[in-house]
């Protein structure tokens, strides 16, 4: 356990690099070319076959800034991500806490909670499209039965935005709940017992025992969820395709449109790089504390 500052090749770090090598090589073999190529494309003129035909400087980025709606698309992407991740985290945490309590039928409840995750996102989105349908869908039928007057969810900008977001949240809840549950299981019971001896309330225990010890897992899960949600393409693509009147377009649906429908690989790569920068900044900012703890 000797560790001297500035020395890279200690036995410990040598072992660390050895253990990381297979994973790193694996990722580099597959992802080095695709990622470098995306970054290159964003600074080049790219023909319809995806070949670089000449240096373009920041031309691709400038062409995006000229789009009148581009600013609002970025704002919407961030809003989409922030709201959806917050909701997933909150609901996931509540479920994890509930399932951490011992009660009869807990095993069944735990299995049932996982189900939304067990279906692939495109199929889940189709399922929700069918559920949202105003004529044959059972959601509005049930809501009407209960005396509400629901809108045609996907027809209007605001309701479509939230209807899309709910599907994304719904798909993400089980993952969150499961990750938190596993984190909760790792908290030694003794700590709670010690707190109880000191006469702590449930809320106190949650705030000063559960949350701090769950902190690492919480940070990782939300960070990963941010990356996921920002790039969640399938839900919007299947439910509204960015409509009505652009109200559900986020960066990733724009990337899709530019790359696969308009065959404009340059601007689409530029958007991918913008996405990358946004996510990188968020990750560095967000994970700072996590690393500070870890490195000590």
């Amino acid at each position, binding site marked *: 356990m000797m560790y001297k500052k500035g020395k890279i090749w200690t036995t410990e770090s040598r072992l660390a690099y050895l253990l990381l090598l297979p994973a790193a090589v694996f990722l580099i073999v597959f992802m080095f070319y695709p990622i470098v190529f995306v970054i290159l494309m964003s600074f080049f003129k790219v023909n319809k*076959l995806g070949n670089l035909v000449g240096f373009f400087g920041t031309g691709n980025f400038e062409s995006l800034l000229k789009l009148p709606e581009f600013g609002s698309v970025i704002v919407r992407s961030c809003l989409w991500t922030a709201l959806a991740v917050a909701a997933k985290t909150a609901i996931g945490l509540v479920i994890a806490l509930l399932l951490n309590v011992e009660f009869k039928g807990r095993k069944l409840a735990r299995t049932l909670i996982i189900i939304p995750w067990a279906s692939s996102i495109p199929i889940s989105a189709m399922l929700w499209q069918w559920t*949202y349908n105003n004529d*044959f869908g059972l959601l509005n039928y049930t809501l009407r039965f209960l005396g509400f007057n629901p809108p045609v969810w996907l*027809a*209007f900008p605001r309701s479509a935005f939230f209807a899309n977001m709910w599907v994304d949240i719904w798909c993400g809840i089980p993952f969150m709940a499961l990750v938190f549950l596993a984190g909760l299981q790792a908290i030694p019971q003794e700590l709670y017992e010690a707190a109880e001896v000191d006469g702590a309330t449930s809320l106190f225990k949650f705030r000063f025992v559960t949350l701090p010890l769950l902190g690492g897992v919480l940070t990782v899960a939300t960070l990963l969820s941010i990356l996921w949600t920002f790039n969640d393409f399938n839900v919007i693509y299947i439910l509204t395709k960015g409509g*009505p009147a652009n109200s559900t377009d986020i960066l990733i649906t724009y990337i899709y449109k530019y790359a*696969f429908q308009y*065959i404009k690989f340059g601007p689409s790569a530029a958007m991918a790089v913008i996405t990358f920068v946004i996510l990188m900044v968020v990750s560095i900012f967000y994970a700072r504390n996590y690393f500070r703890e870890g490195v000590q």
Partner: protein
Amino acid sequence: MKKSIWGIMLIVTLVIGLAFAAHAAKVRVMWAEYDGLTPEYATNLQAAFEKANPGTELEIISTPWNEFHDRLVTFIAGGNAPDLSVIGTRWILELMEMGVLEPIEQHLSKSLLDNIDPALFEGKIKGVVYGLPVAAGTRLMYWRSDVLGKVPETMQEMLTMLQKVTNPEKKFYGIAMTGQKYVELTEYAYFLFANGGYFFDFNKDGSYGKCAVNNEAGIGALSFMNDMVNKYKVTQPGVTAYKRDEVQNLFISGNAAIMMTGGFGASLLNQTKVPFKWDVAPIPPFEGKPQSSLIVTDAMVMFKDSKVKAEAAKFLDFFYSDEWRLQFDKLVGFPPVTKSLASNEFFQTPVYKVMVQQIAGAKPWPLMAEWPECNDLIWDNIEATFLGQKEVKQAMDDAAAAIDALRATK
């Protein structure tokens, strides 16, 4: 440590090198999974072709239609284009701009070319056939003969009739209309063409001029649609949420008096054995305008880089024989593209007859590489009018200006 990295890189290079080794000669076809076309059809076709042509392999890359364009783009941009592919004919200009298409005409046998209905050669660019028609169909009007009593002859007459039968309380709507941004702008095209309009003006040499959706015909068509949606409310509520299949479902469930869609609608109505009476008719024109429907064709294209062009042509000869085409046409619900099947008794029903009868006056999608972007610009503005965000004239002016600006920068 360094040694092992070099070792791994060496292995990777070797694997990559090996993969470059030549493949056995075979024809690869990107094949569309049409509704109604069973997976067995492709399997049988492949087996029969290989049996009739020993030594030639056929690989059918069966692809869901909604993902077809993306997959084709990936294959082409990924440097692995197939030899043949089904495409929506409107993609042809985009593919030509990529420089990957082979003029297919020179490879086709004369008997095959002669057997195709000449009106369907949408994929003929400057006199050369690039796309061999695979399926072609005009869009038609499905109407409830038990509710409406007679076919509306004009759009105006249709509106009057629909106002009488619409009854939102009983969930009965005059016309089921799509309004969600979809891959195609079909609903607007029906009304635009019925009003004698088109998306673009034409220059003297036949090329596309300025965008024309903001001329009298274009604005008239959209105003009419807006009136149906917002003023007279003869459509289902929440039009902007509806995709094509959802509109069809509304008609199938007996909740709409009229819908406009393709020939496959009839197959669906027959499959579900609907309890009401329905019929088909040409899409009615506006008063004083000529009847005109939308014609959508799919075509088979050949790729420049193909090393098996002769074999690919052989496959087309095989596929376009009456035996295989008849089965295909029956399953997919389009009228035949080959002359030799035109008089086949299977295609003498009203649905096929109306589809064929409309061909002469029908208009196709514009053939231009930047059409997908133009399509989106028009759609977004149409939706804005439905939602009350823009006036009709303003919306169409915006769309036309944006499209002209887009095409000018090319």
